[in-house]
């Protein structure tokens, strides 16, 4: 498509009319001609029915004309429906095309652009403001053509009926045409304001959602609320004025068109009385004139949609009318496979406000050399790295990679040769695997990369995970997966084998930290319901959330003398937990150790309120059910606000064997009891291997358990299988189900997996613990040095000793450069940074 060459922001609204919709539009034109004909025909029939059939009293003619009348009405209706379908189709397709083109354009805009543009503005532009322009495109051929044709046909017919009468009744329309643009100008002006204000409101919403932690942390509900309210009030005012003008146009139009019949009655009536006009002609004239309204009204509406669409479209495109700084691909060559030497000469970077962030930078790196950039924050080290990586466009001087100027390279060249790990890496919603493959897939999907791209194998991915230190985390995600009944039978069998080996080899040693499922012992890290049932429910009725509504189970609790003590426990839990949590913000962190979930707090606040006024036996059915529900969840190992009375513990253990006998008698298939040789399908792989639960969240303990499990998994050759399962872990929006360290490790793994010739790291290991940091440092030193070039912005000086060059930056300049030892011996700025000022 030739039109694609013009950037979307430069295209006019009209260019979309035939873009990928030409066939549909032409089809529309044909249908429209048919419709107009089918619309005019009844008028002629009407006249003939009155003048010929009725006047002459011919029944057969009456039937004949009525038949034609009916047929054309039906045809018109069916075709009109067809037109609507086509219009909608074209409108929706056009909107989708516009959105896609604009989105693709926005993705390529320079980073600088996004500093001044809020995500909300982009969302608003793509979702809201493209709708009306799309509608315009849908109507652009059909509406003017069909309505103008109909209008002309009726007007011609009127003139043919009675030229004088026609001229008088048509004289209204020029007046409307004169007034319309005047009003429309006002509408457009307010509409522009509306577009701008909607954008501001959207930006504000997106900003507050992003900063919700800060708002809730500071309790700034009032401040944010007021800011938003003011903006909405302003939008309200603009929208009201806008609507008033728009309805003004409609009312003005209605008023003038309804003057039509008035003129016809006055003049036509006079002419008929005087005998200069047949009655049939007057009737035909009146109804033909009435038929002018609809097409006219639709034309006016079309005009309004056109104006609104134009304003929305232009205003939006203006906002994004920024040229990308670099070409995405080159038309006439494959992407370069560059030599990985870097040379920077007299490079400066000056912001739009004239601030010199980088000033006359010079350095060169041979292939495989590693350079660390150090300096105080604000010294420009990140900016320099981003300039070399083409994410910022330097203002003057040169930066070359393999002898080619960076600013002349395409994005595709950069992607093929460079890996980038940013300070605050972004992790996208999806699985670990999706994120891991992100950089490789992006590099492979560009069309002309010389065909060297291939999907990394499972081994590649696992080695990436190991190198970045994410392996154990992913293994853990895998171990925390629940395998549903009937799935992966071989794995289930193997896990049962591992369970037996674990018990035999580590059971003794780890019993301090693991609570094994033992039939005659109380489980402090499982809820009371699990302690009673001691198994997994095979029916809906005995699942944890349903127990308190299960009459059979309630009767059992009564028989086991458990109802009253559990109610008392539930009451204590409610009062204590509500008392502790009542003033805390709804943050998941505060609810980790609470039996009451974040969303239930309000319900239990009410129950706590009732408990203050009433005795337990006075409570209604529902609050009692709530108390039981809470008590049944209570696991003293995790919920520390109440203690489990010794007597209750004994009663529950007795209850366990009572329930066992009872359910085997009444419904033997309802429960799969915890047994050493049965897989527990409601619990994680980890709990299945342990055949119990871990008691401690302490990292060292976790590590110990991990090590023993890894050993067993290796013996069964299952380690990779579990890691593969772990790679399907969903990381949440922006990866927020991962810790900061895990996010950074994932970003490192995804860059390593690509194995780039040049790696740029912008404080890439700042969130990592010492061990992971030094592991990555070792990897770079031993495997990468001499082969892959590295530029690393570094905040901690203890990791720079292995770099070939260290460049120390201060206020946008490199003040000294050399190996670590040289610089320390020189006792200059690096020495100062390391040991403080003497």
């Amino acid at each position, binding site marked *: 498509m030739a039109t694609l060459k013009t950037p979307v922001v430069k295209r006019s609204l009209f260019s979309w009319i035939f873009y990928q919709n030409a066939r549909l539009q032409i089809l529309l034109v044909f249908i429209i001609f048919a419709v107009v004909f089918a619309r005019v025909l009844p008028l002629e029939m009407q006249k003939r029915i009155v003048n010929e059939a009725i006047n002459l009293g011919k029944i057969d003619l009456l039937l004949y004309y009525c038949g034609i009348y009916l047929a054309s009405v039906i045809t018109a209706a069916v075709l009109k429906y067809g037109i609507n379908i086509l219009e909608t189709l074209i409108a929706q397709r056009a909107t989708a095309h516009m959105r896609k083109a604009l989105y693709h354009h926005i993705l390529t805009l320079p980073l600088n652009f996004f500093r001044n543009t809020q995500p909300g503005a982009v969302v608003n532009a793509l979702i809201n403001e493209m709708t009306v322009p799309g509608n315009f495109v849908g109507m652009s051929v059909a509406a003017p053509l069909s309505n103008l044709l109909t209008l002309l046909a009726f007007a011609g017919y009127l003139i043919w009926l009675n030229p004088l009468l026609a001229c008088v009744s048509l004289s209204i329309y020029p007046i409307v045409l004169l007034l319309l643009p005047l009003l429309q100008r006002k509408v457009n002006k307010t509409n522009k304001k509306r577009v701008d204000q909607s954008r501001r409101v959207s930006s504000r919403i997106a900003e507050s959602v992003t900063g919700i932690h800060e708002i809730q*942390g500071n309790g700034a509900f009032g401040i944010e609320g007021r800011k938003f309210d003011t903006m909405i009030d302003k939008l309200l005012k603009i929208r009201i004025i806008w609507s008033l003008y728009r309805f003004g146009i409609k009312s003005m139009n209605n008023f003038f068109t309804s003057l039509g019949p008035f003129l016809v009655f006055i003049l036509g009536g006079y002419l008929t009385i005087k005998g200069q006009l047949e009655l049939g002609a007057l009737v035909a004239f009146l109804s033909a004139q009435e038929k002018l309204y609809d097409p006219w009204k639709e034309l006016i509406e079309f005009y309004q949609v056109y104006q609104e669409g134009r304003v929305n479209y232009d205003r939006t495109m203006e906002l994004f009318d920024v040229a990308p700084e670099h070409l995405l691909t080159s038309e006439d060559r494959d992407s370069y496979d560059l030599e990985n030497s870097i040379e920077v000469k007299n490079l400066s970077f000056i912001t739009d406000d004239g601030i010199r962030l980088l000033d006359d930078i010079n350095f060169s790196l041979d292939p495989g050399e590693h350079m660390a950039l150090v300096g105080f924050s604000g010294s420009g080290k990140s900016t320099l790295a981003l300039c070399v990586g083409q994410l910022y466009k330097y203002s003057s001087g040169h930066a070359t990679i393999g002898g080619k100027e960076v600013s002349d390279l395409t994005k595709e060249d950069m992607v093929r040769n460079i890996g980038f790990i940013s300070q605050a890496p972004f992790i996208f919603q999806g699985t670990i695997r999706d994120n891991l493959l992100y950089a490789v897939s992006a590099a492979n999907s560009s069309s002309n990369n010389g065909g060297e791209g291939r999907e990394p194998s499972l081994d590649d991915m696992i080695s990436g995970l190991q190198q970045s230190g994410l392996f154990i985390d992913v293994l853990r995600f895998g171990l925390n997966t629940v395998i549903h009944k009937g799935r992966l039978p071989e794995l289930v069998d193997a896990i049962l084998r591992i369970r037996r080996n674990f018990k035999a080899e580590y059971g003794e040693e780890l019993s*301090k930290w693991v609570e094994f499922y033992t039939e005659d012992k109380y489980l402090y890290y499982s809820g009371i319901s699990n302690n009673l049932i001691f198994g997994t429910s095979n029916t809906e009725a005995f699942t944890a959330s349903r127990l308190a509504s299960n009459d059979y189970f309630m009767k059992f609790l009564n028989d086991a003398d458990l109802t009253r003590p559990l109610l008392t426990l539930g009451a204590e839990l409610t009062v204590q937990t509500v008392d*502790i949590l009542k003033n805390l913000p709804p943050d998941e962190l*505060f609810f980790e150790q609470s039996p009451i979930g974040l969303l239930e707090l309000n319900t239990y606040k009410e129950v706590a309120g009732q408990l203050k006024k009433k005795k337990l036996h006075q409570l209604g059915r529902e609050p009692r059910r709530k108390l039981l529900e809470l008590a049944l969840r209570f696991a003293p190992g995790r919920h*520390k606000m*109440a203690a*489990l009375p010794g007597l209750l513990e004994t009663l529950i253990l007795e209850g366990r064997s009572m329930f066992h006998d009872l359910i085997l008698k009444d419904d033997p298939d309802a429960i799969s009891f915890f047994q050493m040789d049965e897989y527990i399908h409601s619990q994680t792989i980890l709990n299945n291997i342990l055949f119990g639960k871990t008691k401690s969240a302490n*990292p060292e303990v976790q590590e110990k358990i991990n090590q023993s499990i890894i050993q067993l998994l290796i013996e069964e050759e299952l380690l990779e299988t579990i890691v593969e399962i772990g790679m399907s872990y969903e990381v949440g929006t922006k990866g927020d189900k991962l810790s900061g360290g895990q996010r950074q490790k994932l970003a490192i793994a995804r860059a390593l997996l690509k194995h780039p010739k040049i790696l740029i790291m912008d404080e890439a290991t700042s969130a990592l613990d010492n061990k992971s940091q030094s592991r990555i440092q070792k990897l770079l030193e031993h495997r990468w040095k001499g082969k892959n070039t590295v530029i690393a912005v570094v905040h901690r000086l203890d990791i720079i000793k292995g770099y070939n060059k260290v460049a120390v930056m201060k206020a946008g300049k490199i003040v000294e450069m050399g190996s670590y030892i040289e610089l320390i011996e020189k006792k200059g700025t690096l020495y100062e940074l390391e040991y403080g000022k003497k």
Partner: protein
Amino acid sequence: MNSNTEKNESGEFSEFQVNLNLLRDIDFFSGLPLDALKVFAYLCTQEVFMPGQYLFHQNDDDGSAYYVISGTTTLCYAEETGEAEVRDYREETFFGSLSILTNMHRLFSLKAKTEVRCMVISRQKFQKAIGQFPGLMPRIIKTIANRITRWEKQFILDHAGNWPDCRDHIGISLI
């Protein structure tokens, strides 16, 4: 103190109540209002460390504060030649108030000598909770300032004999 935790295992006192009582005894927390103490007591967890196990490692940022409920711990310092034991800490000691206030890497390691039971609060939890009680931070800063001054005063008194040796290294209360 010991009897409390024993009882907790068999179910007489809740861990929350035990924690609350302990916090009232800790300098760092003792001056805070009950509402805040309850939240902290709830957010604390109790951990058991086996002999030889580390509570935290030198150079790591574990981001937690520890109160030793029972058992003995050893403070260690890793040098090029190996790990040197600095001294032992017995029960009722509170470690790491600074590391729940800000990111910091440990200058020492702490190792369990006997079986050790600790009450632990993490920086993340502490900071989220402290954000809910705006008046608390100034009090905590005051407590820490007092502690540093008291510590140095004691140090000077204790070392009055070797004055010339320490003269170059004192003055931490002047930060």
